[in-house]
């Protein structure tokens, strides 16, 4: 039993270390500057320092099913202050990526937003109105209604086009080809 726990602990930290951005997880000295610098830390159940500790302790399910990492607003405050240069921002993104890939479903609309953003990226150029509509359809129409006034402020000034953005056909095709190649690599297990 004991050996099993240790084995699993090792494998989760290795899993994170193999992810882009997670490489330096073992260099963390648990100083907590990341948690102290985080502008949204009060919303995290497990702050960034604790997540790193939990990963190293092998708490795979607890980390991956928690909504904590999804509160990261990618501001890089922790990254520029980290005394060990471990890039906590990318490390947290690595946790988000594993949770998404492995089908963990932390209860946060931010996961839906991240998926929507990724899909929008795949269209070539992002069409914000479509992104917003799809997001509110998938999460909460009521929340969508509450945003109507902002939306109207933007739409009436022409700042949220009703039509998709113009782009060259070549651009869209090339993006699709690149993403297919990336997907093939990731599916074959050769790339993260």
């Amino acid at each position, binding site marked *: 039993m004991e050996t099993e726990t240790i084995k699993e602990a090792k494998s989760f930290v290795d899993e994170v270390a193999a992810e882009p951005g997670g490489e330096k997880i073992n260099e963390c000295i648990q100083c907590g500057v990341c948690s102290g610098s985080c502008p949204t830390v009060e919303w995290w159940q497990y702050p960034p320092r604790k997540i790193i500790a939990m990963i190293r302790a092998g708490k795979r399910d607890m980390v991956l099913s928690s909504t904590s990492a999804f509160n990261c607003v990618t501001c890089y405050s922790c990254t520029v202050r980290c005394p060990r240069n471990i890039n906590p921002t990318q490390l947290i993104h690595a946790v988000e990526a594993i949770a998404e890939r492995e089908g963990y479903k932390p209860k946060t609309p931010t996961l839906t937003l991240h998926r929507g953003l990724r899909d929008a990226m795949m269209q070539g150029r992002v069409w914000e109105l479509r992104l917003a509509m799809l997001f509110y359809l998938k999460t909460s129409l009521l929340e969508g209604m509450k945003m109507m006034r*902002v939306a109207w402020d933007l739409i009436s000034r022409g700042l949220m086009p009703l039509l998709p953005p113009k782009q060259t056909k070549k651009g869209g095709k090339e993006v699709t080809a690149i993403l297919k190649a990336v997907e093939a690599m990731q599916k074959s297990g050769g790339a993260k």
Partner: protein
Amino acid sequence: MKQYTYFPGCAMGSTGKPIQASIDAVCEVLDIELIELEGWTCCGCPGESINELAATAIATRNLAIAEKFKLDMVTACSCCYRNLLAAHVTYTEDPRIREQVKKALAATNLEYNGTLRVRNLVDIFINDIGLDVIASKVQRKLTGMKVANYYGCHQTRPYGPDDHEFPVWQDQVSEALGAETVFFPLKAQCCGGTQLFSNKEMIYKLLYKILDNVEKHGGECISSTLCPLCFTNLDANQGRINNRDGDKFEMPVLALTQLMGIAFGLSPKEVGLNKNISPALKAVKPYLKSKVQEVVK
């Protein structure tokens, strides 16, 4: 005439329209030519949190196109700036990712050699144009205007080149325009623009902190970073947040280039000020009356 390739980014065609208008106008005055990159697509920033390899590959495609021009590539959007630069850094420094991205790019016959310089427009203003040139173009001195310069995150973090914690370049530009700059500690604090849809309470609190900090330190208007996400977040959402006294915020928000345009003698419409949602016109009105000297072209 200074030439650069220009990566506008998706948001510049929608929420960033007022910023784009002012960038075009100001660059004409400063004799900067921005050549829009043909066939640019998303910088990859949106997919970065959950699929970094895909994001890096898409960003590198844009870099590969720009590299052919043998010019520095400029972006105004901070998110595009950070993500394109991140792709460049990862590509040149991480051999594992480089091989994977190369493989993905092979599907399009594009190749990136890692020679491109990705730069921010504010960097161009400071280091290529110079504050003395900017000051010499001023037609309406913004004397007495108390400007709080908001930088957001990605313009300086994590790659700089301005300071990560207390950046100064935008302040230097507004001082060159004759304005008085206000120091406020949260000038580079995150506004939360990325999660506006999904975590509204959190974002409103972040916005409140920034706006309250500006008011407390005597700022009369915000000169925002050129990032359309930060700009729109500050500009469009402040009407939904109460200040200390329980009233809604009414802080004029202008993009840095809009402020520059007004000081250079352009009309509010030419710099897109009519499209701002916050009462931005109010902040510049006293200066519009001052005489504009005739420019001999």
